[in-house]
């Protein structure tokens, strides 16, 4: 039977991360690790990364969105009764997971960022952020399958196991979807991938005009870093591309150094930067919440402080 730890993600990287997340769990529960694949080539690859069985989804037509697979996945889950089902927490993944959970009458932990197995009850204790990141909620799912969506980069990629063998099972084609794609534009990568940056200079509302972002860029270039921002700078003012805003609904980053310039530190933004190794904040409001999240805080006008920082860093780094 196919029961076991099930995995679905819309891309290769996240599937490999979830295979890694599910690997030990499958071992502990003594069950198979089962992953969905969108192509034969990926199916072969997922086996080499530790999957026991791959459920191969047939290709979609041009006008079928990825979500068209929901009925196919639901039927497979009804037949096989998986123990656990992890889905990559992309926007599509979260929609699909919710609809699958609703069809299977089970619970779903959205954006689970850590879990542990309660050995006695065989239940996953799953952690997620609530109240904009202010609190951590631990939940268990008391119905089958126990479901969670897991954000990208929560786990490392699974290691390659050349000798691993597994089985590929072909699923039936997705039924026609009432939702039809009439146009799709891939996002052009306007900026560097901020999630990979070691140093991030972040622009907040305290920066008065678009031209002043040059100051942040100068600081970033001296440090070999990249410029990011809080949500309003990208979504409301459109001063920087959406790909570089950090927060609960934006990018979650893990740099060695985060420097906030005029970032007030709304909890939604802090949630995106909380895994930074060091946080340095510059804000003229000494009560700004960013200082509660910072290792080093400079209370002062960024227009005075940043030029001095640039000078001081240049001296130290001998540029």
């Amino acid at each position, binding site marked *: 039977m196919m029961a076991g730890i099930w995995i679905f993600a819309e891309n290769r990287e996240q599937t490999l991360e979830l295979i890694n997340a599910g690997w030990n769990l499958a071992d502990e529960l003594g069950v198979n690790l089962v992953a969905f694949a969108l192509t034969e080539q990926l199916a072969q690859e997922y086996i080499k990364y530790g999957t026991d069985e791959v459920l191969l989804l047939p290709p979609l037509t041009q006008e079928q969105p990825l979500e068209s697979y929901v009925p196919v996945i639901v039927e497979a889950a009804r037949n096989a009764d998986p123990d656990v089902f992890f889905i990559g927490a992309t926007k599509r993944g979260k929609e699909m997971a919710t609809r699958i959970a*609703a069809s299977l009458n089970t619970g779903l932990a959205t954006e689970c960022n850590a879990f542990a197995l309660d050995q006695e009850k065989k239940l996953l204790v799953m952690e997620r952020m609530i109240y904009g990141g202010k*609190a951590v*909620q631990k*939940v268990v799912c008391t119905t089958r399958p126990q479901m969670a969506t897991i954000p990208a980069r929560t786990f490392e990629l699974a290691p390659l196991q050349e000798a691993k063998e597994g089985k590929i099972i072909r699923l039936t084609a997705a039924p026609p979807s009432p939702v039809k794609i009439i146009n799709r534009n891939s996002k052009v990568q306007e900026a560097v991938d901020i999630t990979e940056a070691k140093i991030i200079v972040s622009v907040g509302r305290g920066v008065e005009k678009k031209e002043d972002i040059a100051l942040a860029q100068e600081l970033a270039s001296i440090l070999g870093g990249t410029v990011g921002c809080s949500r309003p700078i990208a979504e409301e003012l459109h001063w920087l591309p959406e790909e570089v805003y950090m927060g609960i609904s934006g990018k979650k980053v893990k740099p060695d*150094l985060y420097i906030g310039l005029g970032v007030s530190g709304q909890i939604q933004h802090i949630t995106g930067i*909380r895994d930074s190794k060091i946080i340095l904040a510059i804000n003229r409001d000494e009560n700004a919440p960013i200082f509660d999240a*910072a*290792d080093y805080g400079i209370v002062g006008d960024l227009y005075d402080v940043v030029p001095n920082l640039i000078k001081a*860093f240049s001296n130290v780094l001998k540029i």
Partner: protein
Amino acid sequence: MKILTCFKWVNDEADIKVAANSHELIFDRVGYKISDYDRNAIEEAVRLQEQHGGSVAVVTVGAPAAKQSLKDALSRGPGKACFINDPSFVNLEPSQTIAILADALSKQEYDLIICGEGSSDLYAQQVGPGLAEKLGIPCATNVNKLTYNEGNKEIIAERKLDDCVEVVTVPLPALVTVLPDINAPRIPTLKQVLGAAKKPVENVTLDALGQNYEPRLQTISVLGATMERRHLKFGTEPADIKVIIDALLKEGILA
């Protein structure tokens, strides 16, 4: 077009404090609000009605005390409210809210249901797509542009996804979840605020639903998120800056 728009009455997360030692959350003097993105959902419903006619009703699930939310919601333009309430409707997990809404709304007439993309308290982002699945209607999530094609009785929705922008057509009846950048919710005028009290409210009770709604997700604990930070504050003097830079060098952060 008959539009239903769902909202959640939530604690204002900005008012929640975290106890220093126990890390428990303190809800004393916490205010309530219509969940942020649900204001965009209401605004979008009202905007579509202004363009195409029809009606807009707001729907919420909550404890009887959430009644105070209705005036706020109705002042934003909808013509009536559907208030699904019971004293047991507190701290509901998403699958419960979905089941309750599905049972209540299956008795309503609608062409389009608009929800926010996620609530500002739990942000589980499940009620929209889960409700569509339970009602057996198609949905489009993460929509940042919505138009109604009256001739074809369908909507055209622009979805902002991780790696692309996807434009889809969805036949009605349907459900959409909207992103905060779809519109800028208007501030109700005094006249609207005063008029809200006179708008009809339909009460739906647990008895009328004739069901029990057990949680499938059980909360084990909720504790304030902790972050180990140094919290060192400095002024703007060159000496201050030197201390910080020396510390960063010592950390090995600056190559």
